[in-house]
């Protein structure tokens, strides 16, 4: 029998396996604290955690826990330790051993573009699923132009996508000042000479020029008038603004998710913003067309990924299924969104400062700040 060779699996291949519910056994060799904080989930994966430094005296403890008849993926933070362990598994006679190329860092940055649907005048709307972190960006394209909403840090991906589609990015919009990830909106706007839009109430302390994203304004993409219409919807932040695209889609930012609602505490003002959040969800959203398709800026659980990985739901359906939209009393609502909240996202204060343009960390530092799940919803664990 020839010796098996260790194979690399990249984030895109892993995404496909998760979305296609292929069987995969993951051995995560990071330390237990990091593993408990954040790990690969979804599809038909099984996962165990054995830190690589517990296997320095031999791989035997891992062998008992790893099945012989499945594809094995060894995962670590960057990839070095996963290769180190994967090689030993091969030496011990195991086959079908893979390591995750670029580790959890690459996993955190991978974006999967998914077409959400067509717009009435011939345009299209795409969702970019950052599956490792639970973040979502959107690109609206129409007649040679594009607008980006809640642009993630990986601007090169969006530039390339626009190039492939033959469109020019004209606008980048942030629905609010993000606290869980670094916005690429401003940078992408600079690179493409586009206009950067931000709700003015979230922009009190920003150090840069921007166009005010507020009610009464209409943003047109292409000359086919696919309107993006802002709706003031505070609660997650004081400036949070939702967008209605083509009378079909409601881009809800971090106000409403498929299985949860936004948390009001990431700018330190939970008590102040509870009433705003309640009004936005139970009055403003209630008065919108219930046939709008909600496209949020995050998902918290992999169960929120629908067909092909798409994260979307009809607004009217969410008023039935989403627990956060079915709380009768104000007091109960207040308790639900201020008590027992999940931990805050990693480095969220520094991330807010970065998004205000007040600090400019290096790319490596930005990557480090974004490690871990987004945790923007009330019910995220």
């Amino acid at each position, binding site marked *: 029998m020839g010796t098996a060779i260790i194979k690399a699996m990249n984030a895109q291949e892993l995404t496909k396996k998760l979305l296609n519910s292929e069987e995969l056994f993951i051995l995560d060799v990071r*330390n*237990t604290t*990091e593993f408990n904080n954040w790990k690969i989930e979804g599809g038909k994966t099984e996962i165990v955690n054995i*830190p*690589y430094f*517990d296997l*320095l005296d031999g791989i035997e403890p891992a062998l008992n826990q790893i099945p012989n008849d499945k594809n094995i993926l060894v995962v670590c933070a*960057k990839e070095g330790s996963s290769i*180190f362990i994967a090689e030993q598994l091969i030496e011990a006679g195991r086959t079908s051993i893979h390591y995750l190329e670029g580790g959890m860092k690459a996993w955190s940055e991978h974006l999967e573009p998914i077409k959400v649907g067509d717009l009435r005048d011939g345009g299209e709307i795409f969702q970019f699923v950052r599956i490792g972190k639970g973040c979502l960006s959107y690109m609206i394209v129409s007649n040679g132009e594009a607008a980006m909403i809640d642009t993630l840090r990986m601007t090169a991906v969006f530039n390339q996508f626009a190039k492939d589609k033959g469109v020019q990015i004209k606008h980048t919009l942030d629905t609010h000042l993000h606290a869980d990830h670094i916005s690429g909106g401003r940078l992408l706007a600079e690179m493409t000479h586009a206009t950067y839009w931000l709700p003015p109430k979230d922009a009190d302390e920003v150090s840069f020029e921007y166009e005010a994203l507020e009610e009464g304004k209409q943003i047109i993409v292409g000359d086919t008038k696919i309107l993006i219409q802002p709706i003031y919807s505070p609660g997650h932040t004081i400036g949070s603004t939702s967008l209605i695209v083509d009378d079909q889609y409601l881009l809800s930012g971090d106000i409403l998710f498929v299985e949860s609602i936004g948390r009001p505490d990431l700018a330190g003002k939970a008590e102040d913003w509870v009433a705003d959040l309640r009004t936005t969800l139970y009055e403003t959203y209630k008065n919108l067309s219930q046939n709008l398709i909600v496209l949020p800026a995050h998902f918290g659980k992999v169960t929120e990924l629908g067909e092909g990985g798409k994260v979307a739901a009809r607004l009217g359906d969410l008023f039935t299924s989403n627990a956060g939209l079915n709380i009768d009393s104000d007091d109960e609502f207040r308790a639900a969104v201020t008590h027992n909240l999940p931990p805050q996202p990693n480095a969220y204060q520094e991330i807010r400062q970065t998004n205000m343009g007040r600090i400019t960390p290096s790319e490596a530092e930005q990557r480090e700040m974004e490690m871990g799940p987004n945790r923007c919803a009330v019910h995220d664990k």
Partner: protein
Amino acid sequence: MMSVLIQTNRLLDCEGLACPMPVVKTKKAMEDMKSGEVLEIRATDKGSVADLQSWAIRIGHLYIGVKEEGGVFRHFIRKSAENEIKPEIKHPHIISNEELSKKIASGDNVKIVDVREPAEYCFQRIPGAISIPMGELEMKLSQLSPDEEYAVVCRTGTRSDLACQIFVDQGFSKVKNVIPGMSMWEGPVEWDE
């Protein structure tokens, strides 16, 4: 930034190395060291910080601390003795952490001698404690006066017990071993900035 001078027994250069190498090399280096000796590891990989700590705790070595200087992480780990968990106390005069804390709080001018390695002393010590590492004790005792009262402290009471016996051999009469020592110390502390 000024590099802090901390006396250790060995320096391991892991700069530029990514996981798993800092832990792999540390494990190898520790195998060649004696119990009680302190290893400094210099690494640039941020991931190594949590991993070295977790590894040291699992093995039972003392992870003393880490200092970051211009992107370099300086880790300090002290190799534990196999029997260190249950110290065999021989020196009859002891003072508990609580009693010592009370004495300090009451303004009692008790002299404290810390016999741990300089690296341990540097990261956390009782304010005003004098540093005399175990290996230098016999040589430096002449600088102290045999009629004074001394409280001798280490991490768990083991090294300080041996130290107390050396004190007595040299004619000191009022020496107390601090039990259990810095590992459970809840009183005031200071450290090198």
